[in-house]
């Protein structure tokens, strides 16, 4: 097929943002929202088509597009496999929901906000499509600009601090990755990752290069102890910003580990596994405990994100089939659930302008529909069987048990803590006594809000009961990843035995 489906996918949001840019500025006009919604839904449908036409029995990259870009140096190369296609679909699914959420939450400069969101979508899809290190870096970094503006312009009272922290932390992490990318170029003569997979990177370089990539992904994941930007960014960002941040931006790092760190540096990945285990376990237990003590809803969910991403990194570096599939599953599931939870917080924030847990209480008596949906997502977040949250954690723990009982035991302990903070949050917000009289006059969620949340709830439950579409898409690619990994580890041990 010659139709450049991936480029279209990447640049469709950019084109629709251009239309918003040239559209006439009018007060109280919905036309920017319609344009962006149209653009992003079209992107979503196109990505569904991409998923549908992807051959899931092949582990090769498909829909490859290649153009010469910088002479004799870098090719603009795009392609997808079973892993990346899921992230693309997640991105294109979340973006329209964010745009719908703007209708209620963004009052000021809606046009610019939508432009920023759409440009961000372009960069995010680009990250998941690119098969070249430099192109990946380009998209990975470029996402900082719109996100910085989203937090800074439309954020809460401490937005400047949070936006700066977000930008500088991420930039600091990724400049080292840039050094590593250039070093890889001079070692292998290419930045095309499919070719780097075939060339073994010399062992003595692997550890340092792995650490350089790790510095970027660890900040983005975020892993303990560089996670501190995340709660700030989440708390201050507007609802749509938090949703994108939690649902997609954090997944770039997990995707990066799978796409770059493990296949390119298998020996270093093996070497650093204990480090990842340690950091993941600390993230799971420590940030869960921190989450327990939060009095701000968004901060609580932000810390729970760190804990959930701890499971993801743990699962990836078990380097077992269950672990990796579980991690990807967990990323998708966390993408849906955390997005939904932030939207839930956004819904009440639009009404009462407070994120403090103590403001609320007994919402179930006055906002029954809202409370029901909130409960669904809270239960999904703590991993109730029948939701996507359960499957991801279950698979990760299964993978971990194969490697280390002790680590798995600690991780399982985190599940209990996860249940504790989510249930306690639900108890304090949804149930309990209504102390705040303002709540009594609140209106229940309107149709747009229901449609966003219901869409998310549907997929959380659907994929909780029927995970096959996701797992089947992943299956071959993950098998391939693990085979290649084991092969290169075996090669090394053979060399050592000789």
């Amino acid at each position, binding site marked *: 097929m010659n139709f450049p489906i991936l480029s279209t996918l990447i640049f469709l949001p950019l084109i629709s943002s251009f239309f918003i840019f040239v559209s006439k500025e009018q007060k109280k006009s919905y036309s920017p929202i319609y344009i962006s919604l149209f653009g992003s839904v079209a992107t979503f449908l196109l990505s569904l088509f991409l998923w549908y036409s992807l051959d899931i029995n092949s582990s090769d990259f498909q829909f490859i597009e290649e153009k010469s870009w910088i002479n004799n140096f870098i090719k603009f190369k795009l392609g997808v496999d079973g892993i990346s296609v899921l992230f693309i679909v997640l991105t294109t699914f979340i973006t329209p929901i964010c745009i719908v959420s703007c209708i209620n939450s963004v009052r000021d400069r809606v046009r610019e906000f939508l432009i920023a969101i759409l440009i961000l979508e372009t960069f995010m899809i680009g990250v998941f499509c690119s098969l070249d290190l430099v192109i990946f870096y*380009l998209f990975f970094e*470029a996402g900082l*600009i719109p996100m910085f503006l989203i937090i800074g312009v439309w954020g809460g009272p401490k937005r400047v601090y949070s936006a*700066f922290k977000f930008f500088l932390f991420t930039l600091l992490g990724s400049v080292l990755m*840039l050094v590593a990318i250039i*070093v890889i170029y001079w070692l292998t003569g290419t930045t095309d990752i499919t070719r780097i997979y075939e060339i073994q990177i010399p062992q003595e370089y692997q550890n340092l290069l792995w650490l350089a990539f790790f510095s970027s992904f660890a900040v983005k994941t975020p892993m303990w102890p560089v996670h501190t930007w995340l709660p700030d960014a989440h708390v201050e960002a507007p609802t749509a910003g938090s949703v994108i941040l939690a649902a997609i931006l954090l997944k770039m790092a997990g995707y990066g580990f799978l796409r770059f760190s493990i296949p390119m540096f298998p020996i270093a990945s093996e070497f650093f596994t204990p480090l990842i285990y340690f950091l993941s376990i600390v993230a799971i237990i420590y940030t869960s405990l921190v989450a327990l003590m939060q009095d701000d809803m968004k901060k609580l969910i932000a810390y729970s994100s760190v804990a959930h991403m701890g499971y993801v990194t743990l699962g990836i570096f078990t380097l077992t089939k269950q672990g990796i599939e579980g991690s990807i599953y967990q990323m998708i599931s966390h993408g849906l659930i955390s997005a939904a939870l932030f939207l839930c917080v956004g819904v009440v924030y639009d009404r009462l302008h407070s994120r403090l847990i103590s403001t609320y209480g007994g919402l179930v008596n006055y906002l029954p529909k809202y409370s029901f949906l909130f409960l669904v997502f809270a239960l999904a977040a703590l991993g109730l069987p029948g939701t996507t949250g359960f499957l991801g954690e279950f698979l990760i723990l299964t993978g971990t048990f194969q490697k280390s009982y002790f680590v798995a035991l600690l991780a399982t302990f985190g599940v209990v803590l996860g249940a504790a903070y989510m249930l306690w949050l639900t108890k304090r917000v949804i149930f309990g006594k209504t102390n705040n009289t303002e709540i009594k006059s609140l209106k229940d969620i309107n149709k747009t809000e229901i449609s966003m949340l219901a869409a998310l709830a549907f997929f959380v439950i659907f994929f909780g009961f029927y995970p096959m579409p996701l797992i089947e898409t992943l299956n071959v690619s993950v098998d391939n990843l693990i085979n290649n990994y084991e092969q290169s580890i075996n090669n090394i041990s053979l060399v050592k035995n000789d």
Partner: protein
Amino acid sequence: MINNLNILLPEIFLTLSIFVTLMLGVFTQKSFNLIFNLSSIIILITIVIIFNSSNITERIFLDSFIKDNFSSYFKVLILFSSLFVLNSSKVFIIESKIDKFEYPIIILISILGMFFMVSSNDLILFYLGLELQSLALYILASIDRDNLKSSESGIKYFVLSALSSGLLLYGCSLLYGFTGSTNFELIADKLNEENKGAIFAMVFILVGLAFKISAVPFHMWTPDVYEGAPTSITSFFAVVPKVAGLAVLIKFMFIPFVNILLEWQSIIIFISIASMILGAVAAIVQKNIKRLLAYSSIGHIGYALAGVATGAISGYKSTIVYITIYVVMNIGAFSCLYMMKKDGEYKENISDLSGISKKHPILAVSFLIILFSLAGIPPLGGFFAKFYIFTSVIEHKMYTLAIIGLLTTVISAFYYLKVIKTIYFEDNFVVFDPIKNKVAQTTVLISCTFLITFFLYPSLLNNIVSSLFLN
């Protein structure tokens, strides 16, 4: 003979035009507009002449003057940037009442000096060209002579620059004494690591050149001159002499000093790292945009020198690409300053930008693009400039330089973000006067378009620059 003159045609044309315009200016009343437009036309014609000349390398005057692709590229770059700087600042010049007819002529004279600098293949011609441009720049710095700050910056620049010229000249004479020649290529033959006296001379010459491009530790004049001089002059200072200075620096490293690479490499690495760090750290506390841009230009020179420090052609190429993109960014940034006018007065403080995104969305977006590009964030042009530099630095296994360079990028991102914060995140409603300076607007637009679309075809500039070193 006629053929020989063809080689010099741009210089001859420029010299004659300077005489003619000078006479015209003296004998006509209120001639600023006329002379200004004439100068723009002269610059355009010179560009055409250079484009039409053959691209064969030719030498005249006993090999002391050389016309090759390298010098032609820099001449065109100098001319284009002068053209944009001049025209975008015209309204500013008239409104700040420095519209003396000598203004554009002096700029032409300094361009002539730079032409000889980049074309020189001989110490004497090089020094003459350097002094011609320096003298013109001294006058430019103090052109607003009734203004205390402008005069101060002129004097400061003159005293320090004269000192550095003296050092440079001393270095040149030492070099002549130890090698017995003033011709670059002959010097290169005589120079080797045993020739300690000549190495001593090299240090003096480097100091002089580092001063001209305001690299640390010879940068002290930059912030004061940038702040004191009128904005139109500052933008000229920030762009054009830097281009010429770097061209000459590359030339020195490439031809006369090519055999003592190890000796100068460590000096350049030190200057580069020091400039990057100082440029990043000192800019953080600045409140005046012109001062901020001064420190940012120091930092940028540090990155450009990192490419020179590799001592290889790939490094020089990346430096040339860097300086070209730097020129575009800086012209854009300064053109933005011409629009910051409130109640008939041009504003220079960062705090004056507070919240302009609400009333001036286009200006704000342009500023945003230029600042992110200066910070080197992809996918803007500034990223590619840095990317090429670090690619060649890492190619030569100078990992420390690369890592320090990239870490200072993060620090310098902080102050660019601070300006963006002022523009976008603050709740004030600053409203500037309606923007009348259409040329400045166009310049900003061109610069932003260049920076945004650079990623579509990033090898265009590379191809051009690669052809400079073919012979």
